[in-house]
């Protein structure tokens, strides 16, 4: 139980996918403009990560390893991730149309969000079992949401601030992202 908690917290804070491992930056910068869409995107990514971890573990251990096809794990995992992204997309279109519109192109782009593929492959590399994999994925998803939510707040402040003209927009956003990332370095070495 304790080890699961450690995995959850370290995936969330110490090895935060966006701010420490620098995965999923595209969605991180694209959807963090507003708090609402940041929360929605975080939830969608967390769901996809958890489902992907849940589905890729049996596929890897029960199908790929016995057949000696470990080298094809990337392809298999992307297939599974794409499946879940499609399902999330359909669900959002039906249940929460405003969020579906707000996320726009970034929703199908979860498919190519390397953070999701990263979680599934790291699960294999760390030889986690099924429970640990899912906890790790949920932790990574929550960490992604946390980064998105924190940064949407930072970004609203940055946009409201009177920045010099040459820093306005993307440059100020990127600098702010780097500072938020530095703040997450404070967690490094906490659980190891």
């Amino acid at each position, binding site marked *: 139980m304790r080890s699961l908690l450690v995995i959850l917290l370290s995936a969330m804070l110490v090895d935060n996918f966006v701010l420490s491992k620098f995965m999923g930056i595209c969605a991180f910068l694209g959807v963090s403009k507003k708090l609402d869409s940041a929360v929605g995107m975080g939830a969608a990514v967390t769901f996809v990560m958890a489902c992907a971890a849940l589905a890729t573990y049996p*596929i890897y251990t029960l*199908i*790929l390893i016995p*057949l000696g*096809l470990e080298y*094809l794990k990337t*392809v*298999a995992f992307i*297939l*599974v991730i*794409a*499946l879940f992204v*499609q*399902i999330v997309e*359909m*669900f959002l*279109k*039906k*249940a929460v*149309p405003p969020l579906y519109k707000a996320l726009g192109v970034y929703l199908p782009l979860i498919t190519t969000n390397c953070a999701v593929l990263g979680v599934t492959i790291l699960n294999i590399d760390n030889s986690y079992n099924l429970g640990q994999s899912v906890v790790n994925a949920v932790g990574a998803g929550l960490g992604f949401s946390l980064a998105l939510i924190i940064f949407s707040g930072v970004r609203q402040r940055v946009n409201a601030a009177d920045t010099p003209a040459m820093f306005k927009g993307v440059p100020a956003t990127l600098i702010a992202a780097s500072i938020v990332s530095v703040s997450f370095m404070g967690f490094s070495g906490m659980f190891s």
Partner: protein
Amino acid sequence: MNFIIPALVFAAIGLLAGVLLTVCSKVFEVKTDERIDKVNEVLPQVNCGSCGFSGCAAYAEAIVKNGVATNLCNPGGSEVAKKVAEVMGVTAMETVPKIAVVRCSGDCNARSENKFEFDGVQSCKAAKRFYNGQSACAYGCLGYGDCIRECTHDAISIVDGVAKIDRSKCGGCGLCAKACPNQLIVVHDITNRVDVLCSSQDIGKNTRTACKNGCIGCKKCEKTCPFGAITVENNLARIDYSKCKNCGKCVAGCPTHAIHRCDGIVMVEKPAAPKPAATAEAPAPKPEVKAEAAPEAKAEAKTEETK
């Protein structure tokens, strides 16, 4: 034969995923009104936003879902309005075509010497940031053609340093109006044939030294207009089109020729007729107006003195 097993495995996984997706698509099916797509096809896809919606697709959705008027598309005009009405099964509404007007007539013949020579980035926005541009008038056309680059109808050209709009080509979408850093371009109904082609809010003397064609805020037009459609605010005359009857008396009366008839080039109906009528009418009431205006002006001056 090593490749057969992986291929079969992946085909199986793919098939499973496909079946799952089909089931999900049935469960999460969203019924969309097919008229939205049809209306969207009819719209010109300029995405200019002059209908008040964020794009052609958003306007199409608003028409079908909220029953918004079918004649709001300016670039499409009456033709598109008719097609949209056809799709929606309603009778077509009348459309008044819109047209863009550049509210500056300070061409290089009228304008005073430049304050300096600007050789930075050749765009209005850049020039505007650098001490409001090189021109003596801070409100006028900068002449670098930011509007031309926006125009999807190829209707704008720079003539003598001022943007001119070809009324036969203009679709009235208003993209140029958004591009102008001095907000000189307005889009209004094509039936509004008179406009004050100046945007200077300087006091009369400064406007006059900067440009011969500028509105000096003398209020003569205010008094000339028989319908009370013109008011001078911030040293600048503006016409209220709900009252204007296009009589053209203000055009004849303006001492700096800042008020123009805009329909000089192309009009839909009777291109030549309104012009002579206006000029013929104008000289007759002119002396009367002068006689009326003069005592008033004197009276005003007196009251100011007594104060």
